[in-house]
């Protein structure tokens, strides 16, 4: 606690300001695809938006729930090792998650921790598929998710509290304090997420049979918390600066009452400690042109927190390597510490003849400290890149946006990745064509990591591969869209062709590098070796369809559908042939639908109610069976209380998720279609208080795609 107080005090001594905050809060505007502001209708790069209104109505408890429930392109399978996010068939590794334009950092097995994002502090989410944007790095091979957080520009003091409680002791806390005084703005955010976890089945495949009293949970108990602070200061009309930082902690609790050493006995929990510090600013050169600069340091440290005596790799008192270094309950042991330093500069210039030029550069340094998981304990990597992108309104009905990003990596050299999009406008119709190249170098983990991981009754040995090549991609998309005040329809086809795609594949034990201490055994316990390998070829292709219709000012409906197929091969040296590889987690069909209704009964009470459905066909995996098809329906209600213009407003959200109680009770150790616990209930209460002027947080908008 002392530490948190000292952090806040330290931050209190800072001089600061905000980046281009205003651009993020303009109504109906998106920024992700091009880095410049566009009305959603006219954005040259196809962008999908989850608006504040949709977020409020849906009342998602986490980013996983929001993205999974309000789009058809994402799927998740929450587990100890992260959310298993997929966007159009490609995993989190290929998806760039940005928070206000800044890369989310830190991964486990390629999975970002989405708990770093406070779901109650999200203003809007923009999704751009493929490596279409030159701005954010060519490693966004599957796409970019830009989470735009709420900005509080009201004068005076602004306070808010959101408390959510749901089944399985699901607790979400969000507290925000914003103070604007003169040229200063401070925003402090605290969030907490907790669940006791749940067990959909006590059946587990182990010891050659199915046991019926396994203690393993479907989703384990966890708690995570985050404190963040952002201070900004307006030096002048043209120059503003900010500094921000946060700390985050998470612990995943695993059952300690297991009876089967072969599957449900665990001797440690998983623990994370993350932190970030960044600073930057914006300089307005003139009315339209500006420069921004940011320096950002991030840390993601991963520990085992022991719950029973555990022998681990380590060094004995003589300094000699041993497989049997003991840790006792309550102690922790660092598994990996990923640190990243990122410096970016960006400039936007409005040029003559309808050109907007966007230029910038980025330098990124990654450092990995993993004493027992990397040979020599440490690894590092750097990438520098510069980019230029021009939006050219050649004709009134024709926009061409072209960009190039030049990437230089410390180990893998140089690669230029061009991007080109075209938009043809005909009244309310838009046709968008896009082509982009992506480039992604292997991560230090993919190159150097080696560790044993027990999953249920199986022990996997994961190996990095120092012979990996960089991955490149070509993404093509073609889309047609119709959008008027009431009706939106779009259909987009895409093909993402990856060369040297890196994936984990099972390998024969004979391929485990010699000298590896992990290859042991007389056959009593099987170790399944898996290694990162470049695939010979891999492609994902599909069609996304979006539809929304405003039936009346109070009633809206819509839905999304996503079809996906994949095709990938890896070379099998033993048999000298190409083997087809399943891209783990792939499902052919995914969909979601919604129907929302809202009505203001009296000036002080407004009701919104919605029904939401989502589903997926069977999900395919290399090992441990396929995930079952599922569909899940949800009813959400929102009750806005209080009069607009008053300092305090209140909101109550009550809902039922998975109303038809779909539960995947496939025994443990096999893949699930969904980890949903079945029917769950939640209630959220929010209070917002503001001493200054302009505090109407009640929505006035009329369409799900409109902004407040």
């Amino acid at each position, binding site marked *: 606690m002392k530490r948190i107080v000292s952090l806040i005090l330290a931050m209190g001594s800072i001089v600061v300001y905000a980046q281009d905050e205003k651009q993020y809060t303009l109504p109906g505007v998106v920024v992700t695809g091009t880095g410049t502001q566009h009305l959603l209708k006219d954005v040259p790069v196809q962008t999908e938006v989850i608006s504040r209104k949709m977020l409020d109505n849906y009342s998602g408890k986490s980013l996983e729930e929001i993205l999974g429930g309000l789009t058809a392109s994402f799927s998740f399978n929450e587990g100890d090792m992260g959310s298993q996010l997929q966007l159009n068939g490609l995993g989190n590794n290929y998806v760039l998650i940005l928070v206000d334009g800044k890369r989310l950092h830190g991964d486990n097995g390629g999975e970002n921790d989405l708990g770093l994002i406070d779901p109650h502090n999200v203003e809007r989410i923009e999704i751009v598929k493929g490596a279409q944007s030159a701005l954010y790095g060519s490693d966004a091979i599957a796409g970019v998710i830009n989470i735009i957080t709420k900005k509080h520009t009201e004068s005076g003091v602004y306070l808010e509290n959101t408390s959510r409680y749901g089944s399985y002791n699901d607790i979400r806390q969000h507290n925000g304090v914003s103070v604007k005084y003169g040229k200063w703005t401070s925003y402090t955010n605290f969030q907490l997420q907790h669940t006791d976890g749940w067990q959909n089945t006590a059946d587990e495949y182990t010891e050659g049979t199915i046991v019926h009293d396994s203690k393993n949970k479907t989703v384990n108990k966890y708690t995570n918390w985050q404190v963040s602070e952002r201070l900004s200061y307006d030096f002048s009309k043209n120059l503003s600066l900010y500094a921000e930082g946060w700390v985050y902690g998470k612990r995943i609790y695993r059952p300690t009452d297991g009876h089967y050493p072969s599957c449900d006995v665990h001797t440690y929990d998983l623990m994370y400690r993350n932190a970030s510090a960044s600073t930057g600013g914006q300089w307005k050169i003139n009315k339209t042109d500006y420069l921004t600069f940011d320096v950002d340091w991030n840390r993601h440290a991963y520990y085992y927190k022991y719950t029973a005596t555990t022998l681990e790799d380590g060094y004995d008192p003589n300094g000699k390597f041993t497989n049997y270094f003991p840790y006792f309950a309550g102690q922790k042991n660092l598994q990996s510490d990923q640190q990243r330093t990122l410096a970016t500069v960006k400039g936007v210039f409005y040029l003559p003849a309808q050109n907007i030029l966007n230029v910038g550069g980025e330098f990124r340094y990654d450092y990995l400290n993993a004493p027992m998981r990397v040979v020599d304990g440490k690894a590092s990597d750097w990438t520098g890149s510069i980019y230029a992108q021009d939006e050219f309104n050649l004709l009134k009905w024709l926009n061409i946006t072209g960009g190039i990003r030049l990437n230089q990596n410390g180990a893998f050299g140089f690669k230029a990745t061009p991007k080109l999009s075209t938009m043809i406008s005909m009244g309310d119709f838009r046709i968008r064509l896009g082509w982009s190249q992506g480039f992604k170098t292997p991560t230090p983990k993919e190159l150097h990591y080696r560790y044993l991981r027990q999953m249920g009754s199986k022990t996997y040995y994961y190996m990095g591969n120092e012979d990996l090549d960089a991955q490149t991609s070509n993404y093509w998309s073609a889309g047609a869209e119709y959008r008027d005040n009431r009706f939106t329809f779009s259909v987009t086809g895409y093909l993402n062709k990856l060369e040297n795609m890196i994936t984990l594949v099972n390998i024969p034990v004979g391929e485990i590098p010699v000298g590896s201490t992990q290859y042991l055994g007389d*056959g009593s316990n099987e170790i399944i070796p898996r290694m990162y390998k470049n695939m010979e070829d891999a492609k994902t292709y599909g069609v996304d369809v979006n539809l929304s219709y405003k039936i009346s000012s109070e009633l809206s409906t819509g839905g999304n559908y996503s079809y996906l197929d994949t095709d990938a091969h890896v070379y099998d040296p033993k048999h000298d042939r190409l083997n087809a590889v399943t891209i783990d987690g792939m499902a052919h069909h995914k969909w979601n639908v919604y129907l929302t209704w809202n009505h203001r009964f009296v000036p002080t009470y407004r009701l919104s109610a919605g029904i939401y459905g989502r589903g997926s066909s069977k999900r395919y995996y290399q090992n441990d069976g396929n995930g079952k098809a599922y569909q899940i329906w949800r009813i959400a209600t929102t009750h806005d209380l209080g009069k607009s213009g008053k300092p305090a407003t209140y909101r109550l959200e009550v809902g039922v998720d998975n109303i038809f109680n779909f539960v995947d009770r496939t025994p443990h150790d096999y893949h699930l279609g969904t980890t949903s616990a079945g029917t769950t209930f939640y209630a959220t209460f929010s209070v917002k208080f503001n001493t200054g002027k302009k505090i109407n947080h009640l929505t006035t908008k009329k369409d799900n795609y409109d902004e407040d």
Partner: protein
Amino acid sequence: MMKIKSLLIAMAAVAATAFTLSSCSSDDDPVNNYTQYQNAVDQEVSAQKQKSGNKKAILLVAFGSTWQQAFDAFDTTKAAYEADSRFKGYDVFVSYSSAICINRAAAGEHVADGAQVRNYYAPNFWLHAFGAAKYDEILVQSLQVIPGEEFTRVINYMKDFANNSLRDLDDEYLSKVTLRLGAPLLTDVDKDVPAVAKALDAVYGSKAKNGVVAFMGHGNPNDYDTYSANVRYTQLEEALQEINPNYYVGTVDMPDNYKQNVGERMELNGIKSGKMYLHPLMSIAGDHAHNDMGGVGEEYWDPMDPESEDNSWFEYFSNKGYELNENESILMFGLLEVAGVRKIWMDHTANAIADEALDEYYHSMFPEE
């Protein structure tokens, strides 16, 4: 300018604070952990020595397992040693060399119910504890099947112990203690291989008269085939076939002796159909035995890739047209559960007590030492 300066100071403060907050100060003293753990083992051994009054110890070393059937097999083996008059006066201990298996066995096993907890400490901890308790004689019996990679580790533990690697044992005691090493099951090609063949035939002879009995050993990939110990599998098959040509021995990982090679040899011998039985050739029946050998069902059979390594022996041979039946054909016993085979390990222990010259064998493996 002042403002920029204070901004810089402030940013440094944020970074420093965030760093401090996220760094977990290391309050775990590694030396102390190690010593603390060793002390617990020392105490357990010392209590046992005091209770039994024995001056000699036998340590049975296996890779380990997390399966109940394996725990039972080790219990039975330990009990067999304790009941054998040849080992009277010895305290018997079981050791695992797999850290994962040690961890889980100690933490699981119905701890919450107050039921039995099995501490299969790693060999180095047991040996140190024997030294601290000053047993006059220490005999380490390898429970490995072939003298391969695992066996070298057993030898290395003994060397570390003899060299007082932690420097806290009594050197005078160490100069006097008698150290003995019991060889793995298939060490001697002339004695052990025919003896194991005979012991297996004593149990499965009647089955071999009805059909093929195929044993599945582990084997090592070429790069891990320490002292070319893989050859014992081939030699065992030859010895078994001298008794009855219906016996076959294959492996999971030994090159040119996979299930496909077993199938080819059977066909060459004219066995293209008929009954078949499968038996693990491993000290205990664990993951490999249940999955790679005895896995039944579509999960263990890929019709698109019949030669896949992931196909189980049961499915592979069933699909080749042999008669296999889930209830009768899978003989799911580890070798420690076959009394006649277990006896050969115990004979090795007895031979070690009788000062069988393992020295020569040992030195030929490590000429540089």
